[in-house]
């Protein structure tokens, strides 16, 4: 792994995605039905595990459903893929042309950047898109960060950003927008990135609570950010542009909220991978109108099944609630469970939408509502305050989604999650809710491999008579 990683050329992972993988997938998705059949026929060659023959295709194939996802959903992904390609291209072009480029941390979205009309890049992008050249790449980037002295205990997702930077896989920023949530890892790693890049860095400070004072404080942070950007870029914010992007964000939120609502039905009409992927697209390319198309596509695919009263799987046997972030290197987990066990993830930590509608009437309403909405993005909203933010939402989900069991995705970076485990366990026990407690690293397969995860899930389902 190490020697292969050493051969990476500058920005190779991004360029590979643009030129070879995402672009080809994008084109192929113009004929989703045909692609569906091809994926189905080729399934035996790539579905079980990664090998030298399938490694550069497997992750992409599986992420778009591995031949078990409905073509309507696949069609929706086309827009998302294009949005990501565009973002990568724009970021690389900005770097090439010495134009401003803002790195935006993965817990924030880049709406404000749109209002300044400069390029933005999600520093954590390669957590997902680094897998397309082979799943050994994200661990190699993480290992690079660790070998440079980045603490091993930091979340692998943000460690990977530092590794990507050291190995010249992501474009150089001219400024950084960081945040104090969801956890200490972000606080720690973004200080490292600020030090390494030496560029002006703005830090959003997330409040602890979610009360009026807290929202007010976060809103003030957004005003400070605008001030910071105006000074750094020597230009004024374009409120009209902000209004446009926020109106699209409202649309995205509308579609995704509807999907979440529909997923409460039994059988569940939606597949969680779509919501999780939309979270990724939102992070990377919320500014693109194509992000709306993806959300709309996912909505239509789900609505179609919902109206017919059918589930995403023919025979829904078990409804799973997945708590804490899903696995980046094994995005196929959702479709795999659906296909193998009739087990549908009905809600999860990041895909579930509770962002608010943004009033775009005035600059004040926009800044206020956008700030509030940002605090409600998946992972951010649960992780930044007291344990009630995790447990209360979990309780509501259990009620709303008629879940049969819970998977605790014990990501070793989430120390705040491990420190809350006893509380979560006691809560689930009181509810009489079967639970699987996984111990893994969501971005680093060296910790717990796909095969090991599959085995644990299989054993769990077997022991409860669901397999």
């Amino acid at each position, binding site marked *: 792994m190490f020697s292969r990683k050493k051969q990476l050329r500058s920005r190779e992972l991004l360029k590979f995605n643009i030129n070879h993988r995402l672009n080809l997938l994008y084109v192929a998705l113009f004929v989703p039905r045909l692609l569906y059949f091809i994926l189905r026929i080729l399934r035996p060659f790539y579905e079980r595990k990664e090998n030298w023959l399938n490694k550069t295709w497997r992750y992409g194939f599986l992420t778009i459903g591995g031949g078990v996802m409905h073509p309507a959903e696949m069609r929706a992904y086309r827009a998302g893929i294009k949005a990501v390609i565009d973002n990568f291209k724009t970021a690389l072009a900005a770097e090439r042309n010495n134009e401003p480029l803002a790195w935006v941390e993965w817990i924030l979205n880049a709406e404000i950047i749109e209002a300044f009309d400069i390029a933005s890049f999600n520093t954590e992008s390669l957590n997902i898109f680094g897998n397309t050249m082979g799943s050994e790449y994200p661990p190699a980037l993480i290992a690079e960060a660790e070998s440079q002295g980045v603490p091993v205990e930091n979340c692998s997702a943000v460690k990977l950003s530092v590794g990507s930077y050291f190995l010249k896989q992501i474009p150089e920023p001219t400024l950084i927008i960081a945040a104090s949530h969801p956890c200490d890892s972000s606080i720690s790693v973004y200080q490292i990135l600020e030090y390494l890049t030496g560029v002006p860095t703005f*830090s959003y400070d997330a409040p602890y609570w979610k009360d009026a*004072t807290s929202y007010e404080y976060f809103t003030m942070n957004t005003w400070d950010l605008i001030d910071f950007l105006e000074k750094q870029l020597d230009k004024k914010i374009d409120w009209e542009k902000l209004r446009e992007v926020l109106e699209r964000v409202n649309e995205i939120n509308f579609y995704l909220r509807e999907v979440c609502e529909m997923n409460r039905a039994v059988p569940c009409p939606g597949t969680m991978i779509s919501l999780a992927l939309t979270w990724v697209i939102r992070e990377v390319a919320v500014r693109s109108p194509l992000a709306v198309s993806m959300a709309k596509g996912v909505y239509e695919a789900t609505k179609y099944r919902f109206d017919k009263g059918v589930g995403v799987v023919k025979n829904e046997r078990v409804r799973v609630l997945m708590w804490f972030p899903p696995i980046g290197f094994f995005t196929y987990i959702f479709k795999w469970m659906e296909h193998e066990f009739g087990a549908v993830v009905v809600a999860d930590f990041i895909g579930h939408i509770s962002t608010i509608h943004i009033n775009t009437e005035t600059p004040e309403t926009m800044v206020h509502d956008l700030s509030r909405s940002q605090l409600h993005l998946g992972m951010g909203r649960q992780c930044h305050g007291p344990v009630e933010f995790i447990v209360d939402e979990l309780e509501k989900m259990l009620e709303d989604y008629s879940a049969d069991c819970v998977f605790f995705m014990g990501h070793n970076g989430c120390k705040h999650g*491990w420190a809350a485990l006893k509380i979560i366990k006691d809560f689930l026990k009181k509810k009489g809710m079967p639970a699987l407690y996984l111990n893994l690293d969501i971005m680093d397969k060296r910790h717990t491999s796909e095969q090991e995860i599959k085995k644990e899930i299989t054993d769990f389902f077997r022991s409860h008579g669901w397999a």
Partner: protein
Amino acid sequence: MNERNDTSHMKILEKIAGIAASERNDYLMQAKKSGKKVIGFFCSYVPEEIIHAAGFIPYRMRAVASSGTEKGDIYFSSLNCTFVRHCFDKALKGDFDFLDGIVFLNGCDHTRRLYDNWRHADIPPEFRYMFVAPHKVGTTAEKRFSGEIEVFKKELERYFNVTISDETLAASIKLYNRRRELLQSIYEAGKSKEVPLRGSEFLRLMLALTAMPVEDSIALLEEFKGEIQGRSTARPGDLRIFLASGCVEEPGHLELIEELGASIVANNICLGTRNFDLAVSEDDEPVPSLAKRYLYHLSCPRMMNTSRERLAYMQDTCREFQVDAIIAEKLKFCDLWGGELFLYRKESRKLGIPLLALERELYGGSSGQMRTRIQAFYEQVRNRKSTADDLFCAAGDDYQAGGKN
């Protein structure tokens, strides 16, 4: 130094060591007996003056005299830091049963869950308060901090049925400033070649002072300051060390660092400079002044936009205290200090200051291993001194084998 002086400062050092060795002490218990309430707090960002102005004794939480983490481990995982696990273990065992209230802080991911687990396990006292400090400095944060202090003040008043007037608050500020001033002058004495107080002794002093009424601590400090005047602990060839870390509270560990041939002359630790750096303005409104002081005092890595200032502090301190080398430590699984050590390693290399980066567990033992590492590091530093000046002395890549500094 004459004999009388020698025995009297030994006496006072012993007295301090006695206080530091346990979570409770005579000063505290006597005050408690006389009806004073004791409020525990967890972090250097909690404004002690507010607690004091309410008529209570602020008590810095600690894990000293911990007998293990077995009980704490039921609530916290092995991926959580040992400071938190030891503290919670002690809480579950009733070691803090003298507390009338406890104030938590969103210091790090581990300590903020203390608030959650404390409530979940329903450990007394009943008054458990989460004080929220911003993660950055600046006008917006300052305003927020002021607001937070106001709410905290009101909550103390409401719950305990007391009044905190501006006058009492101003008086408390004066007292704490006096303590800061005394501590600062004792600390500054470390700049001299004589090193009147060793780092381990200084830590004991801090442990003692933060666990007793501030009035007593000032009296003790005044006496102490006189006693150590003219004292010298320096031994020929001792290296002068700057220690940076988070929740370090074991004088024994600092003794180990020193007995191998060094004096810790300067620090950036919670129970060190971060406690007494920067006075509160006595000329302005008390609450905003408190907010300013607590926000802008020497920061720790929980603060996102002050790393440059921290590194500048490191550089300035090394120069002013004529430091030979830095020892920067973190407890296992501490993201914040892990990141800080990364910065320290890069920066010290840039500046050519030798640095040993250590990872360890609180009360983790393993002093044999630690001893070897520290000794090897000292040798490297001395070799550098006796050979080429520009030869960079590599940090102890103790916890990160491949670390390239």
